[in-house]
């Protein structure tokens, strides 16, 4: 007896494919916030023009954790914390008062360190610096610090004089401003169904059921107090190999000269990587210090000073603070993340404030 069509593979399997496809498409029109472990991915899906983040969006996650624990698929090493991430009308991470027309005294440019990856809205570098100085500081983290970008933003914020702070971590990241079919790009490149499936599949890759093939994405190292911290392999490589880029320093010198014409001062903030700070505090496995004994950011600092640009190198302060807090297990970077935490940012604010006073 011939079975009804509904019981035949020639009907059932194409139906399954069609349903899966429709489910995938339908889910792309829903927010991806529930599928993300941190704000970054949710906030960058539909960026505002010439910005990295979606405008006027608020993200909250009670159990966010570090990018390195995610990269390495290491649930046991996650440091759970809550994260609130809000953006203004321009797509930058600022409280409402930073872009409500009041005078802005400083704009900070830089990468995810400046954005405040891993900290709450009230803990970012710009907010803490605003609180410490009593001035309005604007967070432009995530956008390129080209002269055109700086001038455009300064005009938009009606900034006639002040300080441009550029935070340099050693990564030459310049995000192009979003343009074109942003909405379509956000829908086609991000599949919530895929994200959810990947998260579920990763739980199977726990070295018991399936091997965890992500562990090589991170380096696990033990501190002198026996806590385990994570690093990116490229941060370790750069510590030993990176050399100052003359082209970059010349760019800064040119930028400083041009900004002076607009009554803007340039301040270079040198932010060390977690490895550069915690390397002396590791139990074992670190290579020898650079042959000339001078760290990358120290060399940058020297060259920038020679160019006549104001510079703050956080490396000595951070190393001292990291060593002082080790026994009390007080850290200035997250153990499971590449980024600094609120305490590390507070320390940076103190150093910047000293220079601004001068």
């Amino acid at each position, binding site marked *: 007896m011939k*079975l009804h069509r509904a*019981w*035949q*593979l*020639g009907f*059932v*399997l*194409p139906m*399954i*494919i069609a349903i*899966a*496809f429709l489910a*995938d498409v339908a889910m792309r029109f829903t927010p991806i916030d529930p599928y993300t472990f941190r704000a970054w991915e949710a906030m960058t899906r539909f960026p505002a023009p010439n910005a990295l983040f979606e405008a006027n969006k608020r993200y909250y996650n009670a159990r966010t954790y570090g990018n390195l624990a995610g990269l390495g698929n290491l649930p046991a090493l996650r440091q759970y914390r809550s994260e609130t991430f809000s953006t203004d009308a321009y797509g930058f991470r600022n409280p409402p008062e930073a872009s409500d027309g009041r005078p802005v005294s400083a704009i900070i440019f830089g990468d995810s360190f400046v954005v405040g990856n891993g900290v709450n809205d009230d803990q970012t570098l710009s907010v803490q610096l605003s609180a410490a100085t009593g001035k309005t500081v604007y967070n432009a983290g995530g956008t390129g610090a080209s002269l055109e970008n700086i001038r455009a933003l300064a005009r938009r914020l009606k900034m006639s004089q002040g300080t441009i702070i550029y935070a340099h971590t050693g990564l030459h990241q310049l995000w192009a401003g979003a343009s074109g079919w942003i909405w379509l790009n956000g829908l086609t490149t991000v*599949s919530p*169904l*895929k994200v959810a*499936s*990947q*998260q*579920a*599949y*990763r739980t199977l*890759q726990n*070295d*018991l*059921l*399936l*091997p*965890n*093939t992500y562990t090589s994405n991170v380096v696990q190292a033990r501190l002198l107090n026996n806590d385990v911290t994570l690093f990116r392999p490229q941060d370790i490589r750069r510590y030993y190999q990176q050399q100052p880029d003359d082209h970059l320093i010349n760019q800064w010198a040119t930028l400083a000269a041009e900004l002076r014409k607009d009554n803007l001062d340039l301040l270079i903030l040198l932010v060390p990587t977690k490895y550069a700070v915690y390397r002396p505090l590791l139990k074992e496995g670190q290579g020898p210090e650079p042959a000339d004994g001078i760290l990358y950011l120290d060399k940058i600092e020297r060259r920038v000073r020679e160019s006549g640009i104001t510079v703050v190198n956080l490396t000595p302060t951070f190393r001292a603070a990291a060593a002082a807090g080790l026994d009390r297990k007080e850290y200035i970077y997250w153990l499971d993340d590449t980024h600094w935490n609120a305490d590390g940012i507070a320390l940076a604010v103190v150093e910047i404030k000293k220079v601004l006073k001068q």
Partner: protein
Amino acid sequence: MLFNSLAFLYGFLPPTYLIFWWLKTKKQRYMWLTLTGYVFYSFWNYKFCALMFFSTLVSYLAGLGMLKWDDPRRRRLCLIVPIMADLALLGFFKYTNFALDTANHIAQWMGIPLNAPVLNIVLPIGISFYTFHTISYIVDSYRRAITPTRNFFEFSCYVSLFSQLVAGPIVRFGQIEKDLENIDRADRTRTLNIGWSFFALGLIKKVLIADTIAAIIDPAFKDYAQLSTLGAWACMLGYTYQLYFDFSGYSDMAVGLGYLFGIRIPQNFNSPYKATDISDFWGRWHISLSTCLRDYIFIPLGIRGPRWTLYRNVLITMLIGGLWHGANWTFVFWGGYHGVLIVLYRMNQRRWDRLPLLFRRAATFFLVLIGWVFFRSADFKMALDLLQLMFSWTPGVAVRGGYVLSGMLLIAAGLAHFGPNTFELRHDWKPLSVCAIAALFIVCLFVMYGGEQSPFLYFQF
């Protein structure tokens, strides 16, 4: 684009299928399958479409020449020139760096400063397969085993048919000639269920069995020197089954896709791990290749004459077969190893065939597994290290995911040694079986969404 990818299931297959059946005439369907074949191929590298077109055109013209001329000299010209062109392409892209590297090693050994530079040559995917398609067409035309087609689109459809294009089976023109001729009269409903059945079973074999095993053993092989004896055996057993389920899974998917378009692609695997001797193994493993080697290399070398010439020809054929698999001496050694085994079997056939069936199957499987050690290894050092680990007791680190690997090995062994292969099934499923296959298909989709996509092993050939 892989068969086990969402882009294929969502973006390529539905429009290809729907438009094919919407078109009515032969010519339209030939052109559509040709076009979709080139689109499929272009996802790998669009520049190499020109190479495939060149090979197609040369072989088509050779076929026309065979139709036109009876003169033996002209026919031989139509045979030799296109074959040389195809082999030149294959030789350049696949074996140039192998030849240069070998020359450097020989020169170094002889104390001659050579240092020939290794060229930056990208291997066009599927070139080993579609050149065999065209060569088989030319030779069969020359031998008058088939009548060459005057219809360019029919021939280009045969060469570029996406289901078999990049990893076989190596389908000869005569095997699907009738289906191509009747392509405008194909019955869609009759082949729909069987096509999807083959496709689903192939996908399950590839995604759930082969890729799960690969996910466990590939990291272990990267650090193979740390393996224990048990770990080495587990990994090699895993690879033995992975290779079978990966390749036969792909072949099943290719057969299923062929059925969806009214084309019956012949069987490529016939339960090879049930073989009772090494000759039987080669009658069951990658059947399309072994029959090509037999018909186009072994038989022309000569099957009459003293025994030693027969054995010599077996060795030559198997060495070429090994070389076809890849530009590495380990593949050549693997081919030679199987050649030696076939010769030894032929010499002792009567004694071997009197042994108990279970022993013959187990011994054949064991011999094949040893051969796979060389097939899997990047070089001879790795192969010898693995063999040493396997045959001398070594404590070492456990394989991560060992429990799942053990379970998968049991399932794979059960299916490979005792279960029916897809061509032995009726593909006329009861509702409960349909539910089970559908459930496994959904699991495959989950893995395709959540896991890392892995290509088919035979793509590298």
